[in-house]
């Protein structure tokens, strides 16, 4: 796969293992490369270790008593495996965590301020905020009400906006479509694509909604049971019959009445 990537990857993760509580091995030798300026998707079923992978990259494992026990993570060529989370953000990695965790008692405006890097000047921050309000006009309308009362979609937009304030070079999103109405998913994915194109920001996207995700990314990884079991271009993945069956569904007309009680096991697990 290395040959497919022309430039040096902005992020490369080599056979990383993560232990929770020193006993629970959550991912086992995961290697992922994110080429500069590309959008990459991470697919996989529940509990496969997608979120864990992202946390390993962003340094948020520590908060959950997890640690990288093997392997290394490089960002723009420097080893960041043991770096503190806040330093990684300063380096340009930002992680939009699962579940739209906005600062509920702060207004959207203050949410954006809170995320601003300490070095950013006031005027630069204002420019940045305007940019974000341009991407998400709905946020601009509600900039001064408490974020806790925003709707799910608005909170997700705020979470993404808040991440953008940190000026990331690599933006990682953990299931941004979770629980969002279809048209919002389309809207958010559209905006992500736009940001990726306009600013050249690299994106690593974890999604269950493979159909939508594979539309916008260039390449995808499939994680099962803590291991990368497949990777390839979006086109290649979409064409794979297993992916079609387990992640994409046979289009609109899936007949759930016909789902078998004990369905066939996935090939890559055997």
């Amino acid at each position, binding site marked *: 796969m290395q040959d497919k990537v022309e430039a040096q990857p902005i992020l490369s993760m080599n056979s990383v293992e993560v232990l929770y509580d020193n006993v629970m091995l959550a991912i086992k030798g995961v290697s992922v490369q994110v080429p500069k300026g590309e959008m990459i998707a991470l697919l996989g079923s529940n509990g496969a270790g997608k979120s864990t992978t992202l946390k390993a990259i962003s340094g948020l494992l520590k908060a959950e008593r997890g640690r990288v026990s093997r392997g290394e993570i490089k960002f723009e060529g420097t080893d960041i495996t043991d770096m503190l989370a806040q330093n990684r953000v300063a380096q340009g990695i930002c992680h939009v965590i699962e579940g739209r965790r906005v600062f509920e008692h702060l207004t959207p405006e203050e949410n954006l301020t809170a995320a601003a890097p300490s070095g950013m000047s006031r005027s630069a921050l204002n420019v940045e905020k305007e940019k974000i309000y341009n991407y998400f006009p709905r946020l601009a309308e509600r900039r001064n009400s408490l974020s806790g009362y925003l709707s799910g979609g*608005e909170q997700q937009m705020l979470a993404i906006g808040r991440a953008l304030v940190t000026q990331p070079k690599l933006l990682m999103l953990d299931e941004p479509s979770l629980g969002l*109405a279809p048209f919002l998913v389309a809207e958010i994915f559209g905006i992500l694509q736009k940001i990726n194109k306009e600013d050249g920001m690299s994106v690593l996207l974890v999604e269950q*909604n493979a159909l939508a995700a594979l539309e916008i990314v260039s390449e995808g990884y499939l994680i099962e049971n803590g291991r990368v079991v497949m990777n390839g271009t979006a086109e290649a993945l979409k064409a794979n019959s297993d992916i079609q069956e387990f*992640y*994409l569904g046979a289009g609109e007309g899936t007949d759930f009445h016909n789902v078998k009680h004990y369905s066939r096991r996935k090939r890559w697990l055997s």
Partner: protein
Amino acid sequence: MTDKRETKSHADDGAILACSGIERRFGGIVAVTGVDFVIHPKEIFGLVGPNGSGKTTLTNAITGFYPPNVGTVRLAGNDITGTAPHKVAKLGVARTFQNLALFNGMSVLDNILLGRHIHMNPGVLRTALYWWAAQREEIENRKVVEEVIEFLQLESIRHEMVDGLPIGLKKRVELARALVAEPQMLILDEPMAGMNQEEKGYMSRFILDARAERGVSVLLIEHHMDVIIGICDRMLALNYGEMIASGIPREVVKDPRVIEAYVGGAHD
């Protein structure tokens, strides 16, 4: 509020759940207004709508968390408007929560056993005199629970703590907990959020089987339109707290108002 005695209305005859004119406000926000619908026995009824359109609020109004400001809820003909949640549960309504509400300090088994609470009679003295008073009851209920565990294929994680389980399994445990209560009416709030196609398939299978084998009626909230279309008999779409369409799923999703407010250009 109407008197409990004279609540049998003709139109809802035979309906398991009937909501009429439901309105619920939070401060100035009208979260739900003017919602009418009925669910018939053994029916799977879909509820969709954009975020913040009031779906969860509607279920909360039914289950008594946020009683409606206006309107009535009837369960099998009896008015349950404003009844406290724990009483609603005793009357045969079970539900799952959008943001998972399992009890983290407990094992899967204990979580599911809690679903049997309404069929049990715990007390201080009975606990103190366990061997003479509570043991038989515990074991009888355990048997019911084991049936559901088998049905949902949870045998292998029976004794595990729920904290560490992946979301998909947690959702399944929550469904098991709702099912062991042997409800007439099952309310599922986004049971398939964060699942891939395969897992959605499993979950749909379970819901269909639950209806077939246990005869429950289901109110299903989902953003996955394929599931709604695939397994729901009828559905209702909300926007800004108001009903915008209802009927057979395949037809409702073609309604231009639903497309504009909810589905958008994308389709999945």
